[in-house]
């Protein structure tokens, strides 16, 4: 097995890592399914309040690609259709049954099934949404044949769920899924393992795939970084990616004929009392997860009271969903962080600032590399123009000049964006660039803007 060594990047050590134990199997009262989880998708509502739905039945579909639908993860009754300004659909709330009843699809035997049959069940169940294409990080197009399918078997982001733990019993289901996916591409299926812990990974048991080890700090586990090293994407090329927990769900769908997207979700963060794993479906409410792991409800930073930020995802790539929010479709972790709405007297001028981590040696956190920090959401400064050069390159292990790409996006120069690599990146690949940036520029938002621009131009 080949090992690819990445030197660029940064591992952040944060307080509140999930203990490897299952705290609870959550049977939610209500789940929310949100169109905003799906990039570049305009929803068409398919149910009304009061309708009874089963797990695997569509709640809404994509207006532009009606064959792609989004299913309820539980059975129950549609409790509410939540709309925002201009009647924009924000969420469909489903009051869940105690026992989930599933839409029964026909189980398939992978070796005998054709691409069309597998595609049909993936689309009809709503699990197709788990397949993401590069470029742009949007739901894959069923008509495409990708040049490769790439699966990252580990998440290197801080406080992310440990896939070796969450999927340890799902190797068989994942094998069915990769065998099924192999019918969609003429190229390889890449499975990328962590060089440190990959030998114990359930994905290391997979057969008929091309396995590669990645050694190095975050973002070594980002599938975009891995693609850049294994099968870089040029203009007109498409690579599909899928998260391991969707592989497991896909295996269950194909072998048993049910849409079961339940997964082990890491409840983490400095404000979680008892960080650990909860078995649940996407769409469960944060308050249920909060009850399972407990939360530190009041905490002072520099003598000032701070609230909690509830993030679906990890601190470097997640959505601020709020205390009333719910778990995103794609996420397998939630993070409870302190809101950084405090002021720190002469913070930037202090010689020592022991509560804060910095990659820069102008602070002294390099002295204790293993120390865990209680990170909060303070920006730690004001936004400036691009001033310091070279700092972004240190955390982006891709053959890309980040500042040039960002400036091309700001200038809305499509040709330059193509040349500088817009096809190969999505926001999460630039998360560390934004984290370390002394100019405090919102780099992920710039990348998102660039991708939206490309989607608009290419449509």
């Amino acid at each position, binding site marked *: 097995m080949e090992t690819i060594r990445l030197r660029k990047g940064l591992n952040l050590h944060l307080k509140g890592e999930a203990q490897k134990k299952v705290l609870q199997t959550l049977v939610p009262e209500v789940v929310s399914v949100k169109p905003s989880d799906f990039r570049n998708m305009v929803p068409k509502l398919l149910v009304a309040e009061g309708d009874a739905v089963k797990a695997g039945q569509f709640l809404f579909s994509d207006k532009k690609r009606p064959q792609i639908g989004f299913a309820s993860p539980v059975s129950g009754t549609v409790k509410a259709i939540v709309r925002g300004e201009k009647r924009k659909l924000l969420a469909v709330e489903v009051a869940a049954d105690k026992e989930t009843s599933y839409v029964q699809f026909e189980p398939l035997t992978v070796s005998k099934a054709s691409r069309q049959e597998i595609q049909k069940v993936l689309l009809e169940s709503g699990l197709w949404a788990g397949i993401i294409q590069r470029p742009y990080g949007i739901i894959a197009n069923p008509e495409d044949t990708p040049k490769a399918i790439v699966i990252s078997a580990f998440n290197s982001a801080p406080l992310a769920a440990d896939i070796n733990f969450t999927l340890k019993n799902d190797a068989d289901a994942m094998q069915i899924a990769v065998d099924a996916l192999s019918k969609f591409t003429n190229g390889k299926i890449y499975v990328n393992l962590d060089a440190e812990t990959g030998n114990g990974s359930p994905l290391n048991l997979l057969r008929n795939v091309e396995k590669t080890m990645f050694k190095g700090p975050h973002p070594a586990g980002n599938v975009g970084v891995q693609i850049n090293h294994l099968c870089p994407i040029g203009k007109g090329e498409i690579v599909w990616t899928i998260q391991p927990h969707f592989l497991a769900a896909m295996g269950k769908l194909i072998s048993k004929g049910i849409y079961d997207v339940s997964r082990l979700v890491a409840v983490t963060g400095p404000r979680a009392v008892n960080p650990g794993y909860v078995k649940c479906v996407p769409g469960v409410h944060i308050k249920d997860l909060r009850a399972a792991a407990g939360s530190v409800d009041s905490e002072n930073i520099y003598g000032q009271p701070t609230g909690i930020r509830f993030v679906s995802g990890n601190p470097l790539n997640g959505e601020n969903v709020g205390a009333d929010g719910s778990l995103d479709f794609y996420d397998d972790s939630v993070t409870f962080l302190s809101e950084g709405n405090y002021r720190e007297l002469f*913070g930037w001028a202090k010689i020592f600032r022991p509560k804060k981590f910095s990659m820069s040696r102008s602070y002294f*956190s390099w002295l204790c590399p293993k120390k865990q920090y209680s990170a909060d959401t303070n920006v730690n400064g004001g936004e400036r123009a691009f*001033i310091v050069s070279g700092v972004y390159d240190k955390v982006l292990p891709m053959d890309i000049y980040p500042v040039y790409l960002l400036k091309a996006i700001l200038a809305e120069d499509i040709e330059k964006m193509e040349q500088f690599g817009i096809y190969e990146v999505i926001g999460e690949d630039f998360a560390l660039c934004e984290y370390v940036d*002394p100019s405090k520029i919102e780099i992920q938002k710039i990348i998102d803007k660039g991708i939206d621009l490309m989607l608009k131009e290419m449509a």
Partner: protein
Amino acid sequence: MNWILKTMDKMRPTFSKGGKLGWLHSTYDAFETFAAVPATTTTGRVHIKDAVDIKRVMIVVVMALMPAFCFGMWNTGDQHSLAFGLQWGFWMKVWYGFYRILPLILVSYIVGLGIEFAVAQVRGHEVNEGYLVTGFIIPLIMPIDIPLWVLALAVAFAVIFGKEIFGGTGMNIWNPALLARAFVFFAYPSTITGDSVWIGGLGKHADKVVDGFSGATPLAQVADGIAGAPDFMQMFIGNIPGSVGETSTIAILLGAILLIWTGVASWKIMVSCVAGALAVGFLANGLAEPGTFAAYPAVNHLVMGGFAFGAVFMATDPVSSAQTETGKWIYGFLIGAMCVILRLFNPGYREGMMLAILLMNTMAPLIDWCVVRKNVRRREKRAVAK
């Protein structure tokens, strides 16, 4: 300490938009964010941020300038006492230096920050920290006897035409501090050239000078003939006539260590700058007839004039230097090479570092373009090859 925060809470409404002094809100913000890191929180998908900000980066550069500044204070007094035959002790020399440099620094900061604050106010931006460094560097690269009104004009020129018309810190093409020096050099050459400007009081009281004291900088002495120039060690230590902060190579090296250790300035630029100067220097040594300036030991170029200060503090300005890592090697090398070429072949003005850096500031985007172009080509080929 909380009283500071409370006072700020009380003052803020007055300075907010709609308040009595609302038109001063950028200025107020600058002071408030100086006193305390603001309570702003992240809004995107990245929820946490590194502790470092531009204020921290800039304060590190100011700290790195301190050895050169302190040495400059002492040296100003030392040169003055040498020139006038005074038997001053250490503290008297430092006091004299402080007393002479303080007005330069005050003028630099008052004029420069005044313009910065006004522009930030008009644009509705936050005040940039860049001038904290620029404003400190400018007095250090001027002769001690520069008239304050010339300094004020130079600062205004540098801030307005060097920075603000491009959009402020981060957008400028040339290093603003060097632009101030270039402005003085071209607009008021008599205040920055000749033998009498480098030592405090020498211009005004030329009659009281000790017999045989010239006040010429080593660079001028060497250019007139190698004999009589100070030796390497004296220039390395720096008790020689010259601009306030750039005489002592050893003090500048202390700053360089801090800059490289903290990663604030690029070591690649510093190293390649030295390499470029040595390459041209040795080449000239090899080809030159003995006794000419070209035969002057190449190593001495590193400790003469503004070379060390320029290589450490100005060539490495992240905004006006090359942005790509490969580009930094080329950019630094060419600065060093160009500096020595200018010294050897430009009899009118021997100090090549200022012009070398400004020239390469102009060329830096071109160097980067070539480097990035190579990357684009490679990426395109990669697509074809597959």
